[in-house]
């Protein structure tokens, strides 16, 4: 297994656990989901632009 792939698996796992943890906020606070999705799109665009 390549170094990049094993690192990617760990990062995926960590990011998924973090995302699952904020799930509670999504349900507890109105508007959180929308804000998260919009800023996720902005973050992704920033990555694309920076690449």
């Amino acid at each position, binding site marked *: 297994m390549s170094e990049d792939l*094993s690192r990617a698996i760990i990062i995926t796992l960590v990011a998924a*656990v973090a995302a699952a943890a904020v799930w509670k906020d999504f349900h507890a606070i109105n508007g959180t989901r929308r804000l998260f999705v*919009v*800023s996720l799109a902005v973050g992704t665009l920033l*990555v694309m632009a920076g690449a």
Partner: protein
Amino acid sequence: MPETGLDNPALHTDTMSMPVVGTLPPPHLPTPLRLAMLLRCLAIQGSWNYEILVGNGMGFCIEPALRQLPGGPDGPAYKDALARQSVYFNAHPYLASLAVGALARVELEQVPATRIERFRTALCGPLGSLGDRLVWAAWLPACSLVALLLFGFGWSALGVVAGFLILYNVGHFGLRDWGLRAGWQCGLRVASAMGHPVLQHGPRYIGLVSAVLGGLALPLAVHRAIGGQAPLSPIPMGVAVATPLLAVLLVRLQGRAEGWRVVLLMLAVFVLYSVVR
């Protein structure tokens, strides 16, 4: 709105039937005394135990103020007050300073002991609830997300850690200092301080900001962590697809697959793979 215990009658003044001590305009809080209590508040959990929780810590924090009681540190008033303040108490460590300020004032104004004890007992629940919501559930995750965002923007490890510590402690020390001042200012009327907008609505607004920070930080930090490869190459695309799927799976399996168990399982798989290979 979650239960905060602010409706407890002991937290509100009953000026019709009780003496008005503890509700008069606040006496001047000398800076050396404030700093001594504030400094001691940092060690409030130093003698935490299962029997009286932060009870000893409360006595330790209020002690500098009690020296001003008639008779000084050798007088009976000092000893009685210190004993009264060193019994069971539970509160969020940062917001305990609010109780320290309020209780120091009522002790120095020599409010009747039974009333102080009732007031002290009534403070426990609300301070724990408010502090947990504001600090552990809102401020700490928000600061962590800022640190993640800094990492995503390419900051060095030292910069990320320093950024987190500075930001977090601005809130931490600010809350402790505000609590001490507000507690002293309000005395028995401390419920009005606990109704402060930051305590009541802060968690909600910080939660909204956290959502924005999280959304921005996730792709940037993940991109940097996997080596900054082109976003449309197979590995970043795989991460982008697998992350939400796994997150939804974790949420669906709530109670059966906590994050730490999944991470442990994955580490075990890696170890086995490296041994077998």
